[in-house]
């Protein structure tokens, strides 16, 4: 890495603005707004304005932050920020089709583990708040995590096998490039079950409606978030929105990667911008299919049913895909 001024500025730009912080935050909150709007429309409601997540975020910034008596102050306040940081850094690993911060080489396993950081931050923060409701909430969050991790890893392995063949390939950049030349993975029949499984994994990862057992506000008073108020809560809400974007972007890269306009209009900033727009459009569709639609038509799972669902139906779909890919389909 060349630490000249221009280079440093470029890196700073990448971290803070384009694939990094600002882009993720803006698109994440945008997707969250779209999700709420779509759910409302599907329930025959008008729904909040698209800016609503922004209002929520800003409002929470303006509220008091109360650190409860039983809480461990340092951990309690640091936890949301750790999750936020993890997400921002993770965003740098996800390429916007061709364009990414770290030379297009996001590693799938690294991503898988970075994805756990926000969840762990939520868990540790909830645990540090000292509330018994949070205790139940973190238990559920953890079980949810155990549930979706199994299908997720099988999906990633199927994709890796499809792209890498008989070589080890965990690089997201490589997966995108492969799709650029061989067509989107979504159109390979062997990976369709995996794609469906991934659509079901996203809502659990983000924690939206039928899979939000951890934050069930009607049962366990928002679970881990119970004692949070003010800015830390705002950051947690922001984390959820960012996760929404990151998961859908990951989906896009895994199954619809390589849709680059650079070949049509020539490489350069317009092509990157156009790519970003296309990516956001795909993200909206994925948000609709995986989060809004499921949210609108289902009621919350019980935790044991959630676990069973993921380890049988979703993992079964993913494993089917893995087996199909393995034997050369």
């Amino acid at each position: 890495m060349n630490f000249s001024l221009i280079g440093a500025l470029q890196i700073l730009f990448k971290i803070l603005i384009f694939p990094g912080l600002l882009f993720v935050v803006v698109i994440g909150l945008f997707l969250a707004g779209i999700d709420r709007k779509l759910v409302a429309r599907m329930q025959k409601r008008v729904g909040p304005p698209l800016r609503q997540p922004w209002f929520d975020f800003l409002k929470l910034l303006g509220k008091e932050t109360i650190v409860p008596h039983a809480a461990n102050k340092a951990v309690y306040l640091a936890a949301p920020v750790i999750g936020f940081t993890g997400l921002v850094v993770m965003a740098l690993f996800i390429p916007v089709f061709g364009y990414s911060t770290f030379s297009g080489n996001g590693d799938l396993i690294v991503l898988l583990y970075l994805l756990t950081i926000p969840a762990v931050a939520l868990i540790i923060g909830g645990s540090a708040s000292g509330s018994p409701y949070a205790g139940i909430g973190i238990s559920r969050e953890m079980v949810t995590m155990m549930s979706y991790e199994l299908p997720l890893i099988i999906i990633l392995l199927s994709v890796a096998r499809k792209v890498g063949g008989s070589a080890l390939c965990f690089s997201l950049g490589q997966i995108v490039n492969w799709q650029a030349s061989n067509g989107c993975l979504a159109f390979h029949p062997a990976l369709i079950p995996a794609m469906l499984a991934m659509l079901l994994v996203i809502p659990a990862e983000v924690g939206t409606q039928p899979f939000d057992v951890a934050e069930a506000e009607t049962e366990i008073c928002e679970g881990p978030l119970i004692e949070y108020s003010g800015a830390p809560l705002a950051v947690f809400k922001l984390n959820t929105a960012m996760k929404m974007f990151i998961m859908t972007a990951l989906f896009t890269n895994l199954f619809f990667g390589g849709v680059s306009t650079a070949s049509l209009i020539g490489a350069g900033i317009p092509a990157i911008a156009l790519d970003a727009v296309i990516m956001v459009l795909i993200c909206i569709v994925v948000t609709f299919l995986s989060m809004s639609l499921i949210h609108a038509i289902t009621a919350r799972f019980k935790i044991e049913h959630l676990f069973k669902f993921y380890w049988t139906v979703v993992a079964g779909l993913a494993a089917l895909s893995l087996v199909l890919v393995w034997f050369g389909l």
Partner: protein
Amino acid sequence: MSYIHFPVIAVMTLFMGAFLTVVLGRHSKGVRSFIALAASCVSFALIAMLVKPVMIDGEIISYWMGNWAPMSGYAIGIGYEVDQLGLFFALLVVTTILLSAVYSIRYIEKDSSQDFYYVLFLMLSGSVLGLVMTGDVFNMFIMIEIMTFTAVGLTAFRNTSFGAVEAGFKYLVIGSIGSSFTLFGIAVLYGQCHTLNMAQLSAMLYGNHSPATLMAFALMFTGLAVKSYIVPFHTPAADAYTTAPSSISMVFSGMVNKAGVYGMIRLVYIIFRTVDMPSVQTLIVLFGTVTMFIGVTMALAQHDFKRLLAFHSISQIGYVITAAGLCTSLGLSAGLFHAMNHTLFKGLLFLCAGAVLRSTGTTNLDQLGGLSKRMPKTTLCFLVGAFSISGLPPFNGFASKWLVYQAAYEKAVTTGNIFYAFVTVTAVVVSVMTLASFIKVTQAAFFGQLPARLADVEEAPGLMLLPMYIMSLLCVGTGIFYDKVYQYLLDPAVRAAFTVSNYIDRMMGDGYAEAAGVEDVFASNPHFSYWNPVIWLALFVIVFCAAYICVVTSKGSRGQILSDEGGAEDGKYATFFSGEKALPSHVAGSDLFWGFKTDWKGYFRVMEGLHSGIVNDYALYVVAAAAFVVVFTFAFLR
């Protein structure tokens, strides 16, 4: 250069320390501690001085006891041979010994018979150090035996505490069955080859297996597997780690079961050279996968801090065995790296458990809670350990688990065997479950509400915190600079494991290997995917600081941060309790994860039935597994 004497001096220092403790340290606490510390420091220094010649310059030290060098191609004397693999484990051993010795000073100060403690401790240390550096299989057996019965003694050290003697007895029975199998294997091997030297055995056995050597392989494999406590031999380990003093639990998980792992690697890679055989790979990976899965699920069901850690030790050894059993260079690197990391983080966690036990008098997760307010330093160390073992970036557990996944999946795609793909999946799921059970400990012991009983618990003393800090730093450091670790420790060790001819030549004289027709199977260098923890961490720290300042400072337009300074129990700062007056109510260990446990009810019932606590059953598992290994060996090994 005189460093060829260092290995032997290091081992003998520890044994001499044990002897001197008996002679001089009976009555004086200071003398005892001094002898233990001095012996550990000396051996640490001696081993550390070997890093330069062995690891960096690539030399292999061979040392013949009484200068009884091999004649006419027959090695009759006992030889010490320190290659990179041995030194790698020796480094783990001496680090563990040193830190444990420092920790012990304050930890066991209230116990009686401390002189026996130090005698046994130093003998255990010396035996394990001797085991990883010896070049003689029978010497290895003797070291295993010394290790076993000193370990038993230390397990039952606090013999009035709950179940300590029982654990010691089970450990002894299972351990001695394992030793017997090892000895039986050695005897069969000797009957076939008439030598006990590893290098010579390796040269003789290369591509030259008779039924007798297969039998020997099966028996020695079982014996060493018992020593590394993989499933189904893990039962006494869980008990022993629970009841032993924490400084000793750390030694157990840090080096005693590593000794077994070392023995298995030595056996498979060097002595029998069965690395190339897919059936052996399948056998080991199968054992490893089952181990990591059963270990972690049992850990999820535990209510005792140390017992939970014990089952995690078993589970993590499963990772090591799985990775090493893949028999690729990437796999072995992953295995060794994970072994090293396991020593660091599990030692750290056991030390934290010890600090908790010393301060609160219990390790029952249902009785603890909220300790982070009283023991913040221990909590910090625990969190580092817990995140390391759960494999969160950028801690070391992540780096090694990541290598394990890569290795397993590389094996899967290169061989086209879907079994290894499912091994990878299991490894990832086990990792998540590990995280789950450490979340359980975090919630049950360190966060949540502080029970009134523990309101004036005190932080562990500085001398106990010191090893914890060191290990925490090592956990973070090896995670971030894992490429350096790979370059200076893992790569030489892996090369040593694969380049057997070098090993044989150094021991038996140049040209011996070639004469015996030994070929190296060293695979290409493992390649890593892109993961740069340094940049990542720098980014993380920068963004974290910025965001933290933005969120937490109560300047300007944002809402204030109010925290309870006065200590009022009720009102604004009380925990929300549905409006009720906040009662001390803590979600303890056994209450967590019931949603998961109900789904796995049948499994847990069976598992609890199997871990019956009856020593006969445990012996039965050992014998049955040994039978399985023997049958498998004869059926599939060619």
